[in-house]
């Protein structure tokens, strides 16, 4: 039987190859953070404290969209199309298959974060990340938490037709209240409390420490890391429970 590591590598390469082949999806995947950076960079042009908010905000949004949004969509699609069921009937271990999907998503996260970091250096006067450790730790924990929550959300989506409504119904309000586009301090108190209990605001909080000079180190964002970690644990439980290889059938 082929070894699991080799199978995982093959599965990952296959997913990557097909990802690039779907050109419009690949294009928008990488253009989106750039468009947001360009738009908000123009809006708050010359105001460094605003720029300091936008860059980690877009970085956090990128983590969420490449993992949470992408996996919720993909799994709903693969489940509805019967791809998951077909794979389940082959000797490919389920964990290897899902690992390939996750690595594919994480690769997109890494590319988007790299784009944001380079744009921060070139256009937003941020320099290279002052605390790379904080950046790496928060990206890793954020990716894990949001990927698992995306898997969990896919269980709640009844069909691929309704996926955009459900996914955007979660994604858009969360990015609006979590300080992606403005400092979360400007959000009314009760909304801020909600945002701080959700995973995106703590992620952006930690990414700010990693990306923006004089906003603390990893040690200064431990509360945020803890909140994100709790969401990660939640994500594991919700993703594993109720995982289904098949679309719900009417009959």
């Amino acid at each position: 039987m082929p070894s699991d590591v080799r199978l995982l590598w093959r599965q990952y390469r296959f997913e990557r190859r097909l990802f690039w082949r779907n050109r419009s999806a690949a294009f928008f995947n990488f253009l989106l953070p750039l468009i947001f950076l360009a738009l908000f960079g123009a809006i708050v042009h010359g105001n460094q404290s605003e720029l300091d908010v936008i860059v980690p905000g877009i970085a956090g949004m990128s983590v969420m969209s490449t993992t949470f949004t992408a996996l919720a969509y993909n799994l709903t699609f693969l489940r509805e199309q019967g791809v998951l069921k077909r794979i389940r009937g082959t000797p490919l271990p389920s964990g290897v298959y899902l690992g390939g999907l996750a690595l594919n998503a994480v690769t997109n996260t890494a590319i988007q974060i790299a784009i944001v970091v380079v744009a921060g250096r070139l256009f937003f006067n941020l320099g290279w990340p002052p605390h790379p450790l904080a950046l790496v730790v928060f990206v890793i924990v954020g990716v894990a938490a949001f990927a698992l929550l995306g898997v969990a959300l896919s269980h709640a989506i009844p069909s691929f037709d309704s996926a955009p409504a459900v996914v955007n119904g979660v994604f858009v309000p969360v990015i609006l209240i979590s300080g992606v586009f403005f400092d979360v301090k400007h959000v009314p108190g009760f909304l801020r409390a909600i945002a701080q209990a959700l995973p995106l605001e703590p992620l952006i909080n930690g990414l700010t420490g990693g990306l923006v000079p004089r906003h603390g180190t990893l040690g200064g964002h431990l509360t945020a890391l803890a909140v994100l970690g709790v969401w990660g644990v939640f994500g594991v439980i919700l993703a594993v429970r109720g995982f289904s290889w098949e679309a719900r059938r009417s009959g």
Partner: protein
Amino acid sequence: MMRAMASTEPAIEVRDLRKSYGELEAVRGIDFQVGRGEIYGLLGPNGAGKTSTVEILEGYRARTAGSVSVLGHDPGKRPRELRARVGIVLQSGGIYSHATVAEVLAHFASFYPRPREVAEVIALAGLEEKRDERTRTLSGGQKRRLDLALALIGDPELIFLDEPTTGFDPAARRGAWQAIRSLRELGKTVLLTTHYLDEAQELADRVAIIKGGRILAEGAPHELGVGAGTRYRVAYANGNGEATVVETDDPTQLLHELTGAALARGERLSALSVTRPSLEDIYLELTADA
């Protein structure tokens, strides 16, 4: 040595299999065996319990009760070795739409310890002209042939075919039947579910008629229903040319009486025929809602 020993036991053995979904009993205690190299058909109307039965054997569903053995394994435990020896053709299986036919087959081949050649399987499925086309450009019939090719790529001993020709036009159906017959020549064991009678009659060595979660009759398609209590139908035209049909359990005696009487009157029995109930008659009788 192990393989030689293993090949003497049946490919599939099912005893008192039961499956309930909450209150609904979909499978209510069925028994059957499928021998090595046999094409076995589960024939029944929609909702008869065919798919539940097959999905338990494929390892997709847990059974409620009973015992099941597939190539000597319990499919409920989903052993990887069993999945490497079984090919599954699903009723509706999606596939990577941006990959080509050859790419998908080469990728799936990498899952198996001893796969068949991609080119060979493409030829077997009749997809040579589509080998470098993306799967999303395939027609419905070509997609089903790719389904078959994907089930064969691992060189399985046992193949599950769930409603393989549902929605096919007559020509595509003939083509699929030819492909299924070629599996017999390869020495494969096939478990086929269908709600088409002619399909079961055409392809299966043995058929089980299933309804309401129970097997109502089992046997070779031409033997089904032959036995005690079978009604033969004797039709003839009498001396006045009136068509007459008589049903009997004992055609020998009836024919003797009819022909004897006709000879005594100096008449001929025209349009004489004796017919055994067809699989269709038996199927309709058994599955009719009483």
